[in-house]
């Protein structure tokens, strides 16, 4: 049990988060220290520096205006990444916050243990930040701690609902032949790329004597930043307190779809076409960009659960993330009306198997 010291730090952090400063490290029974706080973030949290041990993010998500949120929007997923200035950032793990429709918000205390391997650089610290990986942009806040978790799982046989983080033991994505196991979604060659950019060379030409160099029109010049698993529905969780490895197959008996729909910032017409062309998505008759993935009934996948573990399969889609600039290119090749745009696009059915030591 963490002591009152940490609770005090939580309150102090909350009262100071509006200035977005990192609270000074404050020991709590020798086990936890505060590592900072975010008053509000939408996509990425601030970066906090950790020396090792365990890391805890205490995340709150507001969903007050959507009390009747749909089942698949109920779970807001956050990924923990290590910010690496010299190489690509390292993925650490994920955590979910369940929005409680009766309360209008959700909260989770997520702990990642033994994060020493992410400590790097001259400062001997790991730089962590949270990245939202969910469909809706509800505002989130976070309070962060480093230290040692005194509440590590024991052999207790109490079943805890909502304790849903675990180690990923297998990614499976679906293609024409069925489900195929991949090492991890980012290294998979099975997920097809988008159609690519028109690849215009943008040069500004102000000399009216010269002929127009560009056809003119909207362009979205973007690159795909990563694949990520996006959950559509939970599988049941099996706890194995016995002494025998157990195979568990869960059957999906509902059809749930995860799709895209742009609600603002992208106008119907040229802007939509430019974005759809770049990311390889369709345009619906309503003038909206569209791509959807359906997890359908009678899909069954099997997962092994070793003694002393719990295991489950989450069902969802592999989702692409595109980041880039949307702009209007004049017939004289001048970029105007520029704005940056992030696009998240579901691509394939996917299952992720997870397990966790009890």
């Amino acid at each position: 049990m963490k002591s009152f010291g940490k609770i005090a730090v939580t309150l102090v952090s909350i009262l100071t988060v509006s200035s977005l400063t990192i609270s000074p490290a404050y020991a709590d029974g020798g086990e936890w220290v505060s590592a900072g706080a975010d008053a509000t973030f939408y996509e990425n949290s601030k970066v906090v520096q950790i020396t090792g041990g365990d890391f805890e993010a205490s995340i709150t998500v507001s969903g007050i205006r959507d009390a009747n949120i749909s089942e698949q929007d109920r779970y807001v997923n956050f990924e923990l990444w290590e910010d690496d200035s010299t190489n690509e950032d390292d993925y650490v793990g994920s955590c979910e916050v369940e929005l409680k429709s009766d309360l209008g918000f959700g909260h989770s205390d997520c702990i990642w243990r033994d994060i020493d391997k992410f400590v790097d650089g001259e400062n001997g610290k790991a730089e962590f930040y949270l990245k939202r990986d969910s469909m809706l942009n509800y505002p989130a806040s976070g309070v962060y701690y480093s230290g040692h978790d005194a509440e590590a799982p024991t052999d207790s046989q109490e079943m805890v609902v909502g304790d849903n983080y675990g180690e990923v033991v297998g990614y499976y994505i679906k293609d024409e032949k069925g489900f195929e196991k991949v090492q991890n979604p980012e290294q998979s060659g099975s997920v097809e790329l988008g159609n690519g950019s028109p690849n215009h060379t943008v040069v500004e030409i102000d000399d009216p004597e010269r002929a127009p160099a560009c056809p003119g029109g909207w362009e979205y010049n973007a690159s795909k930043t990563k694949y990520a698993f996006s959950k559509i529905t939970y599988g049941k969780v099996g706890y194995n307190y016995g002494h025998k490895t157990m195979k568990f197959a869960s059957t999906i008996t509902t059809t749930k779809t995860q799709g895209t729909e742009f609600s603002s910032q992208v106008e119907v017409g040229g802007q939509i076409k430019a974005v759809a062309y770049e990311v390889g998505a369709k345009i619906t008759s309503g003038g909206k960009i569209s791509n959807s993935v359906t997890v359908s009934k009678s899909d069954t996948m099997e997962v092994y659960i070793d003694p002393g573990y719990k295991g489950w399969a989450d069902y969802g889609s592999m989702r692409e993330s595109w980041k880039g600039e949307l702009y209007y290119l004049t017939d004289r090749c001048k970029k105007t009306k520029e704005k940056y745009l992030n696009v998240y696009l579901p691509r394939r059915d996917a299952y992720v198997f997870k397990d966790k030591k009890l």
Partner: protein
Amino acid sequence: MRYPIRYIYVVFSLVILCGCYNDELNKVQIKDSNEKKQSNDVISVKEFEVNDAPFKQSKTPEEAVIHQVKYKLSNKKVVQAKKKNVLYSVTYGNQGVTAVKVPSCTVTDYFLFSTDPDNDRKEKRYWAINGVLDVTIGEMEKDSKGLALPFKEFVSGKFSIDDNDKKVIWAIANEKHVITIGKFPIPPLDHKLNGKPQLQFPLENFSPKDPKRDSILNMGKHYLFLGTKGNPILYYREGDSLIWISGNVSEKELKKLAASLPKVSSSSFPFSKE
């Protein structure tokens, strides 16, 4: 939430968050195209837990699934199946398959358990769970793909008991009934014996035994007897496979279903069509 003080934290956070809410909602969003709302009255299975149980409570597959398994429901209640919740059990040799309807749920949920006697225990015939197939009755399929089912809409699931896909069960269920079709490998017939009983077969048997069982499991002949729960068990040999069917349905319905099964070598088995 593990600490009461976290509630205070949440309240503070919400005050801060709400102020930022309106401005940011107009960002690019991805919305769920399926906006079904769940009723608070829905009670379903969220988790299940398998434990060891005393030997005297695990002497049969049925006892094992009653005493070794707990179910945690969406209303936080933890329940265990009782005898009346065990729909039937089919045991062939050292392989048990037991169908359970989880009690106290408003969403019908069947669990089929694979059990075998434990080699690691000193006690003989301690049945332990080594596989679980969960079949929840949700959105139903209507196309039976050539299978003569006693109901029009159903949910189906497949479970490979072994790793090489030789010992497989299929479950086909609706709100009231669940039918299990099993495919187990068996030794081939020795044709040199010209119909005489062969020593190598039967190596195994159903438990309880089929009282009218022939000494040879002849090709093409269907056998039928009743299991411990009064459930009909129909079985036959096809090549090197034993096909058995059981369920909480009538003998007549089971025979009709068996007659509609394709050859076991069919890639779509037990369905006639993909």
